[in-house]
């Protein structure tokens, strides 16, 4: 039984026993509102996966039997799943069905159907257009799906379309990429209202954490990757871009109390710091020093705040930075082996100490 269900049962018991009056019971119930779905996340994932399989299966059947249909029939067949999804969505809205067990798979199926409809019609007329145009078309058509269903999968996939658009449309060889980057960033911004609406619905913890993980990764790593591809920048500028995007996601996550975003941002920033150990580029040394400071700061923050994840990310990065430099040296392998063992033991000991400190606290 979930905690909130247990609490609701207890409040009902207190009320019947007269331990609390009606007003107090109502105040308590309002303090712990029911999450939107009583159905387990496992069922939602299974339903979503099922919806994805159904969508892909329908596309496969259409593709295999395409030649037997005329152009009109093809168009009708392409749009039919999309209309069916809308029909279910209208029914669900009219009846007030709010369960994620319905909206999550429906969002996925609707998203896939919309993209498939656009692609199938394009194939019918052999529109061998540019990839960015197709991505933009699909993105515009699927945005209402994201806003309407607030499906975690659809919501997390949509910003990827914006990033693909940015990467595929940027003519980095021509030097004129600003317009493409601005368009891609505006597209990315269009995904934010759906996420805000999703957060306001007080989703379950698993939904909240998984959505933050995916969106945090897309907004930090994805955006940085797109910018690096568009700007075709070198390794030093690339690292700075990754750090900049991570810093932005960290700041927004901290400001709006999205606890997973800062962690994702720190992981992405740490990942971006890994090339700084390369010796063949002298310009990287200053970035290497910054990475060391960042790793120490993250470790210290994790120890002070008793956050194991931060401590581990920071200490692993610190160990990586030091060991990578150390292993590039000409020191004997026996010494290198001993250093490795000492590092492993130190990391384990740090974890044990912190876990004990947390328990004592």
């Amino acid at each position: 039984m979930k905690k909130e269900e247990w609490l609701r049962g207890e409040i009902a018991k207190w009320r019947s026993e007269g331990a609390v009056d009606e007003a107090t019971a109502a105040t308590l119930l309002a303090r712990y509102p029911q999450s939107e779905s009583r159905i387990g996340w496992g069922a939602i994932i299974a339903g979503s996966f099922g919806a994805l399989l159904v969508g892909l299966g329908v596309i496969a059947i259409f593709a295999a039997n395409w030649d037997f249909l005329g152009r009109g029939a093809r168009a009708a067949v392409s749009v039919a799943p999309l209309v069916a999804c809308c029909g279910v969505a209208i029914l669900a809205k009219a009846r007030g069905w709010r369960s994620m067990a319905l909206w999550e798979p429906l969002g996925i199926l609707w998203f896939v159907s919309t993209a498939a409809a656009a692609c199938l019609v394009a194939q019918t007329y052999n529109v061998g257009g540019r990839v960015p145009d197709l991505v933009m078309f699909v993105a515009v058509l699927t945005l209402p799906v994201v806003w309407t269903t607030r499906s975690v999968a659809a919501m997390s996939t949509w910003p990827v379309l914006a990033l693909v658009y940015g990467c595929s449309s940027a003519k980095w060889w021509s030097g004129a990429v600003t317009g493409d980057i601005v368009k891609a960033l505006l597209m990315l911004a269009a995904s934010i209202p759906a996420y805000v609406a999703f957060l306001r619905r007080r989703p379950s913890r698993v939904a909240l954490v998984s959505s933050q993980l995916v969106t945090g990764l897309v907004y930090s790593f994805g955006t940085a990757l797109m910018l690096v591809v568009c700007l075709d920048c070198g390794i030093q500028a690339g690292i700075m871009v990754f750090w900049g995007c991570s810093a932005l996601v960290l700041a927004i996550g901290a400001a709006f109390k999205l606890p997973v975003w800062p962690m994702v941002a720190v992981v992405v920033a740490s990942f971006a710091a890994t090339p700084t150990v390369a010796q063949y580029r002298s310009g990287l040394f200053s970035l290497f020093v910054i990475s060391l400071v960042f790793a120490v700061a993250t470790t210290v923050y994790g120890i002070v705040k008793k956050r194991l994840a931060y401590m581990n990310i920071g200490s692993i990065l610190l160990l990586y930075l030091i060991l990578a430099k150390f292993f590039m040296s000409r020191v004997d392998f026996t010494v290198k082996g001993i250093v490795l063992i000492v590092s492993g033991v130190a990391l384990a000991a740090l974890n044990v100490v912190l876990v004990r400190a947390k328990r004592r606290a």
Partner: protein
Amino acid sequence: MEMNKGVVCVCAALALQVVAVGFLVWRYERIVQKGTEVRIKCQAYDPYDPLRGRYLRVTVSETCTNILFEVDADNYWKVPEGDIYAKLAKAPGDGGLYRVEAVAREPTDAGLWVKTKSLRLARALDHEDKRKGESYDEFYARQKKSGTKAVVSFPDQLFINEKVAPEAENLLRKAIASAVAVFRVLDGEIVLTDIEIGGKPILSAVREGEE
């Protein structure tokens, strides 16, 4: 009230999606129905793309030296921004096949003009045109004087059934000399509708081959 708002939102989403997809259908169906049929010599192969499915990649690479826009002699490869149009006309004594007669930034007369998919500008003389015994300096001087040629391409993907794609490619490889891309042209837009081998649509040719 909230329920009605939700229903209205979903209806609006459906309307947007159906109108957008419907517009796509209308735009291309109009060209296929009412457009002028144009046949251009082509080569084709099945690129086996797991993302897009099976399709025949048509290579229609038409060359033309009649360029109706300014070309910078030093930066001759620089293609102007925006759409480039190609004028199609039947080539005399070529079995009714069309060739590109001119390229321009916009139609300049009442001929059959179409938007090109891509345009590449190059020197009119290729490296294959270098004479035996001619030094590279002499060749480059001759190449510079030869002027600029435009190499244009048109829509190049014909999507076909997964099962028949390999056989279609096989047929095309055997009868490459008689392969023709069939397009429809209307109001400057061009749509690829079929590939013909020896005057027969590719699918009919494949099915005949199977029988």
